[in-house]
């Protein structure tokens, strides 16, 4: 079964407050994680996203779609990256997410991808 593991936050805030060592460790951690998931045959895809401040939101306004700057919710935290993994069960997806949480210490969302066969 496939799961999407999502991290939220702001790359900008991270860059501003954290030091060089943190950055280097973070990059190493992410490389190692991707590599481990690739080797275990579980990685479907993983992407990091540009900072939410660079996002555009397209809304339906006065009968036409209008593009404005900023992420949809206009909150400080937005999606910064995700992994899609194909794993044996939910427990394994949570195990992977826990490994990320233990390192980045911000909440991670784990969502099942709609890939189950229908029952009838």
């Amino acid at each position, binding site marked *: 079964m496939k799961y999407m593991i999502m991290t939220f936050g702001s790359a900008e805030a991270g860059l501003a407050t954290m030091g060089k060592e943190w950055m280097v460790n973070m990059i190493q951690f992410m490389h190692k994680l991707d590599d481990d998931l690739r*080797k275990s*045959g579980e990685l*479907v*895809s993983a992407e990091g996203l540009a900072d939410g401040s660079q996002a555009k939101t397209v809304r339906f306004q006065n009968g036409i779609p209008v593009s404005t700057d900023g992420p949809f919710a206009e909150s400080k935290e937005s999606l910064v990256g995700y992994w899609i993994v*194909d794993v044996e069960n939910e427990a394994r997806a949570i195990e992977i997410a826990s490994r990320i949480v233990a390192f980045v210490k911000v909440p991670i969302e784990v969502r099942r991808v709609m*890939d*189950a*066969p229908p029952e009838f």
Partner: protein
Amino acid sequence: MRELAPQVLAILVRRHGQFDACEDAVQEALLAAALQWPKTGAPDNPRSWLTTVASRRLVDVWRSENARRRREETATALELPVVEVPAHDDTLTLLFLCCHPSLSVPSQLALTLRAVGGLTTVEIANAFLVPEATMAQRISRAKQSIRSAGMQFDLPPEPERAERLVVVLHVLYLIFNEGYTTSSGPTVHRTDLTAEAIRLTRLLLLLAPAEGEVAGLLALMLLTDARRAARTDGDGWLIPLDEQRRDLWNTAQISEGVAILTRTLGKAPIGPYQLQAAIAAVHDEAPSAKDTDWPQILALYEVLERVSPGPVVTLNRAVAVAMVHGPRAGLALLGTLEDDERMAHNHRLEAVRGHLLEMAGEPVAARESYLRAARMTASLPEQRYLGLRAARLG
């Protein structure tokens, strides 16, 4: 050609050991055959052609690994005549090996499709909608586990065999089920896993003709797959059994499934696959939804619940109870599942409740149940179907 894959692999493993290296070599021989045979025509003895090409490939690999001593041993081995071992037993042994309980379920599925089914990594990756590299890695990991656990290329000893067969059947059942996912992916590029599962189960029945549950699983697959053309409409919407166009059902598959079941029932110990097949047969043989023999289905579910109890069986029995004794009786039985933790995250309890509430003439409560079920399911076509049921009552 693909039915030769497990036979050739078994010959190599018997001769050289090293399951993982042999499996890679067979895969390459199959690819070579796929390229050459259309141009040159199939050789007179395709099995020995594949065996020779795969053996050469093995030697090349060992040579490039610079294992000189090994190479010499192998070169000697290659000159030995092909020992004609019964291919049947070998394919069965291979199936048991690929479905070894120490492998993860995704690994069992992938390895079975490649080593026994003879599918390429690309085909398997496409079928499961994962990148080829991921599938290649998963297969290679599975093979490493087999090697590091020192698993032998032998049939499991008799006391374990029944237990191990249960795992093999489960893997084939999951491959079949996975085929249903086709409705949510780019179908054009996907290997038909349902057909492959049927082919492999057919093969298994040839190898183990006395096993009632193997026959039961094959019958269940045929009787379920027979309804495939009627299961969805042109836009991919699911159509429930009672609304399906029965003239679209595959009558040849139904006859075959019923025939297999008829000659099996009573001759071997009864098991869950035979019972589920019997239930599918009652549905398939009904000329219309309203002519369905529900008392017979209910009786079969009662036996199934004794043989293989579980909340999903109870859930299905509740539907049969509702059809025989009315929706209230069905809803009362559903109530017994309320506190079952195994059902807490299962959308089917709410989906069935919605259906029975609708039957009982309670559209508001039914709508609530359908919506709850739609939120819980991880199947896209099912979510759309449940949403539609709710919308119809809105």
